[in-house]
């Protein structure tokens, strides 16, 4: 997409699906840059900040959250239809989020335990990323996303250039800023070698291991990350390993469940659709 013509401020919309709002808050957290940003962009639809929602279509939509209900399925198609550029932000929108733990269980069983009247709950069997349903122009990873990266993506869009959001591992950021490797030197389990850069290697800078909140680095050319090769070196029990891979990007790090077939899941979703429309 070319640079936005000078004169008219491009419009920005921010949308929320199944999520905690943390990534939207990253936009408000751009305190020092917020005035400059609103000088260049008209924030037309951002319910977290203002209940006054301007009419679409919008030049840029930031979408937070995963698709978890039949209503979400309709709404994400609407968002796509009214957005020139659709950018997904955060682990929920790009990987299904921590709520995608349901993909490895039976959501209807969960609902029957949690809710007094589970038949009122309209939900899909899986929590899925936005890109599974509509074309996405750019995915910004993180839980939450990084403020500098969000500004970089918006600035790049305004200038008509590609955003500088490298796809390499967190190790690049550690080495660039001079962090000592906590895994090799301290024996601290760290997912950094297989995790997408972007956070600036915050955790290792404070002596902690990376826990993968930016999801896997796609350094394997579209195949699964080489998690299997790293695990024996993390010196963790099977249970600890299971837990460390079962967080915000669980579907991206963990293998798909073997017990349930894709066809069954689609059938579940159709039933949920029927339930919701009743």
């Amino acid at each position, binding site marked *: 997409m070319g640079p936005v013509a000078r004169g008219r401020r491009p419009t920005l919309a921010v949308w929320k699906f199944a999520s905690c709002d943390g990534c939207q808050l990253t936009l408000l957290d751009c305190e020092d*840059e917020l005035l*400059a*940003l609103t*000088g*260049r962009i008209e924030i037309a639809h951002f319910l977290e900040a203002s209940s006054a929602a301007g009419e679409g279509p919008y030049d840029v939509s930031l979408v937070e959250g995963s698709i978890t209900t039949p209503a979400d399925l309709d709404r994400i198609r609407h968002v796509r239809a009214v957005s020139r550029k659709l950018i997904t932000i955060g682990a929920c929108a790009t990987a299904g989020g921590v709520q995608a733990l349901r993909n490895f269980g039976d959501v209807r069983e969960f609902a029957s335990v949690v809710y007094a009247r589970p038949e009122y709950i309209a939900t899909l069997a899986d929590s899925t990323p936005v890109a599974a349903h509509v074309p996405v122009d750019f995915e910004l990873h993180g839980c939450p996303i990084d403020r500098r990266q969000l*500004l*970089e993506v*918006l*600035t*790049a869009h*305004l*200038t008509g*250039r590609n955003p*500088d959001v*490298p*796809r*390499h*591992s967190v*190790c*690049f950021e550690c*080495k*660039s*800023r*001079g962090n*000592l*490797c906590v*895994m*090799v*030197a*301290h*024996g601290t389990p*760290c997912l*950094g*070698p*297989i995790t997408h850069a972007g956070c600036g290697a915050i955790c290792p800078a404070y*002596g902690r291991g990376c826990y993968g909140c930016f999801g896997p*680095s*796609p*350094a*394997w*050319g*579209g195949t699964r990350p*080489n998690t299997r*090769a*790293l695990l*024996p*070196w993390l010196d963790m029990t099977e249970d600890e390993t299971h837990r460390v891979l079962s967080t915000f990007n669980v579907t991206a790090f963990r293998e798909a469940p073997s017990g349930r077939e894709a066809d069954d899941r689609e059938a579940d979703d159709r039933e949920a659709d029927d339930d919701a429309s009743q």
Partner: protein
Amino acid sequence: MNATLELTGLGPLYDALRRAGYTVIGPTVRDEAIVLAELDSIDRLPYGWGVRLSPGGYRLRRRDDGAAFAHAAGPQSWKPFLHRSRVKLWEATRTEDGFEVKDQPPAPGRLALLGVRPCDLRAIAIQDRVLTGGRHTDPSYAARRDGAFIIAVNCTEPGETCFCASMGTGPQAGPGYDLALTELTGEDGPRYVVDVGTDAGALVLDDIGAATADPGDVERARAEVTAAADRMGREMPALSLRDLMADSLDAARWDDVAERCLSCGNCTMVCPTCFCTRVTDTTDLSGDHAERWQLWDSCFDPDFSHLHGGDVRASAKSRYRQWLTHKLGTWHDQFGSSGCVGCGRCIVWCPVGIDLTVEVAALRDEAAEAAEAAEAADQSTG
């Protein structure tokens, strides 16, 4: 410049370097490792500390002597000080009729590098060739390199992952130092036999009035360095690595490595000779200010070989093969030497302990088996 001198402590040398206007960089203990950092006092040297190295493992250990340089290669080489990870090349500001570009003059460095190991000394020479020896000079590197004063320390305590002896780069320092020390430990603390490499080195020693070395100490120093060659923890197979790499492009071993390699890029970033950078442009929100930065890059980054249409080296296999065959093979064609100095950092700081000496041995064995099979086939048909 052949005088051999002796120092009983490094305090006077440190003070002389400071008087000459140098910032002294050297080994010191931080975060449970011996890192290279600016020394605000000579007491910051890691006296009495050693290291225990293994593939994917690094631990400090206490020594029962007061040696300051009885430790092998640490987490980083001198690369971050000479070939910095982030360099601003220029910035530009929008004017009424275009842009005003402001070049970023390279920041002149005046660094004294204290404790450069023979492997790392050779690595600096290799980066000199790459970054200043061709048609295009890296101005940032050149400025920092020109101002550097190098105090090498011969190796008397090689680590478990060291193999400089088989790469011909140590344990005795080759050319390129201003001063070279050999540390001798004793009951009165360490003392240092000093070889002078340059006039600049001689001037510094004149300043502190170093004594002529005791012949017994010189003999002992030489003997300890010679003996260190036999205590290397690793050995690179003795054969033409350049030929082996060229003949191994289709080896099955690359698939085996790809099963283990994380493509994380640590090997290239700790390697003292890896030099690749990328260039990126940034703009601010107003669109009135732009900057161009040079950043470390790595052949393990999927974007490194990205062209329109996709990544040329899309698989971990193709990236590891590129790294190793360049380092040990095509580096000879490009720069006239090997790109490996045997420091062993890529072995230690690989999170999954991939050991290039093991990989090379496996490639050698695979090539030998293939040759045997071909010979057997020839005989049976002949």
